[in-house]
């Protein structure tokens, strides 16, 4: 049974995007998540891991989903893919893809869209590919799941996809096994596999976190190029706000299973409206001009069982006051976007750009 969505009254507006024309509003976003809640049921217990997550991704748009480890980013991404175990997960709200609520689809219907309309790449390229099949076989299999094509055409298109992600000598690599490739090459192969069916939306969950810095930059370039060239929308999940701000026009910040801020990337970098986002920004090494210790946010993300009733950031927030122990709603902001903090308009929080 699904509860009706009880978040903020939905205005039907999409959040501000970094386009030259501020009035440009896509009639219907590609992905429209409304008040998504995810509850895991364990033996004799219900753990609400994610609550009231609302975000939109327009066609061709790149949106960043940031937050520290344990904030529920991966769980949210997996929910959008329908990859959470249905037997032990309960969902609230809606996940609208092309205006169609995915949560109401049968597993069979969902499977048709998975990999085809919406694809996902994961953090660990070393373990995300089946070790006993060649790269090409795994890409070809994906293609043949969604298209009626023969083996030779699948091979051609797989090699084409490998070339698109910048793998040198793609025809040879097509027949290589995952263990024969480096981490960066594997992540490229993983991306090639996911884009081979030309999904409208790509969810990239920390795609570079497991890689070293130079490779990281290359993978970011590949992703940036792909979305620019093919018009593929991207939901880029990362704990690294700096990385996200390079590619994404909008940033959604998650904290302890909730969206706490959702705005255009430039606005977030200049004037964050939620103390958590501000803290995240100030702990970025690349944006801190002075040498010395980075001002990191004290404390850690509470675990789902210990979520406070009021503002979930209260225990770590330098601006906390009495009223903060009341439940916070995602509020529309005057200058566009949303924040989940009753002080967001009055506080002047430091960003990293001016």
């Amino acid at each position, binding site marked *: 049974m699904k509860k009706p969505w009880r978040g903020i009254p939905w205005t039907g507006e999409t959040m501000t995007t970094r386009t030259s024309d501020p009035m440009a509003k896509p009639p219907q976003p590609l992905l429209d998540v409304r008040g998504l809640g995810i509850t895991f049921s364990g033996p004799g217990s219900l753990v609400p891991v994610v609550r009231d997550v609302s975000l939109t991704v327009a066609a061709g748009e790149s949106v960043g989903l940031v937050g520290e480890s344990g904030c529920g980013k991966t769980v949210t991404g997996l929910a959008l*893919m329908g*990859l959470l175990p249905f037997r032990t997960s309960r969902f609230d709200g809606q996940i609208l893809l092309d205006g169609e609520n995915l949560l109401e689809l049968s597993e069979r219907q969902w*499977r*048709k*869209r*998975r*990999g*085809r309309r919406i*694809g*996902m790449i*994961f953090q*660990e390229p070393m*373990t*995300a*590919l*089946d*070790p*006993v*099949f*060649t790269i090409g076989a795994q890409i070809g*299999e*994906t293609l043949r*799941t*969604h298209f009626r094509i023969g083996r030779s055409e699948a091979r051609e298109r797989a090699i084409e996809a490998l070339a698109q992600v910048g793998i040198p000598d793609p025809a040879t690599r097509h027949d290589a*096994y995952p*263990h024969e490739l480096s981490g960066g090459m594997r992540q490229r192969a*993983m991306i090639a*596999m*996911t884009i081979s069916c030309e999904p409208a939306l790509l969810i990239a969950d920390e795609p570079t976190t497991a890689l070293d810095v130079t490779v990281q930059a290359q993978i970011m370039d590949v992703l940036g190029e792909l979305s620019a060239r093919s018009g593929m929308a991207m939901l880029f999940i990362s704990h690294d706000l700096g990385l996200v701000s390079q590619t994404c026009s909008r940033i959604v910040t998650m904290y302890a299973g909730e969206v706490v801020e959702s705005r255009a990337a430039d606005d977030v970098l200049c004037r964050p409206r939620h103390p958590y986002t501000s803290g995240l920004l100030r702990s970025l090494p690349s944006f801190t001009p002075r040498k010395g210790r980075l001002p990191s946010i004290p404390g850690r993300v509470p675990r789902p069982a210990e979520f406070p009733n009021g503002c979930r950031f209260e225990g770590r927030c330098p601006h906390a006051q009495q009223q903060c122990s009341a439940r916070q709603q995602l509020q529309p902001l005057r200058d566009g976007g949303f924040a989940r903090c009753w002080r967001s308009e009055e506080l002047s929080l430091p960003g990293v750009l001016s």
Partner: protein
Amino acid sequence: MQNQFLRFLLWRMVQFLPVVAMATLTIFSLIQLVPGDPAATIAGEYATAENIEAIRHSLGLDRPLWEQYGIWLWNAAQGDLSNSLLSGLPVMDEVLRRLPSTLTIAVLALCIAVIVGVPLGVLAATRADTMLDRLVTGIASLGVAVPNFWLGMILVSIFALGFGWFPTTGARPISEDFWGALHHAALPAATLATGGIAEIARQLRSSLIEVLQSQYVRTLRAKGLPNYLILWKHGLRNAALTLLTVIGLVFNHMLGATVATEAVFAISGTGSMIVNAAINKDFPVVQGAVFVLVLIVIVMNLIIDLFYSLLDPRVKKG
């Protein structure tokens, strides 16, 4: 590539030589512990001490133990398994005469174990933590725990004595009467198979569960691959690596367990041959039979290794 492969094969063979030597040496040493004197047995009840001594000398039993073993090993390396101390007949002939019955039960048992064990393992894994899974796992632990000879007697009393579907004892040569041989081998093979079924089902279940929870299976689901392909193509293909290892171990175990099974079903295979010869301290026969069984185990392991290198691209050849 082909050359590399042959080298790989040859290398594996060489690696196993010490195993053969160790196995036969152990058997040789153990037989020395068996009470009795083959020379005295041959000489009969009324023989004089000189008589016995003469026989002992002619059999080479008066030489130091290491020399006896050395001679045996030297001959075995040249394909001569010596003669039985008691009958004087070549051991090789006797082993080859009895081997088919033993292999028939062991191979049939392995087939039964795989044919029954694999679906049970898959079923338990895909229904993990349900009643069905617990049932399969429970029966599997029972199958491992039950002694073979006891189960054999129960099977005989139900299916041979009770229903009369199968013969109670004996064997048919498989070269002459294929179906008759299988008919005779059915009960002993079923007895032998239970442990294997249980082991295969258990190991396949845990290996498959691990595979199905892996990151790459999550990727497969993210691609939109249908469940049956995930299970039967990717799941089983990855779990097959564990399965192969288990099959090898199960087969080795089965060959050993034929000794008890052949006793229960009165089959004159290599197992009963070893038992009789050991009682009479007829060490060339025991060693010869063990030697051949060890060779079979080694060949089986080689075949498994070959399959392994075919199935797992990460195994380096050579």
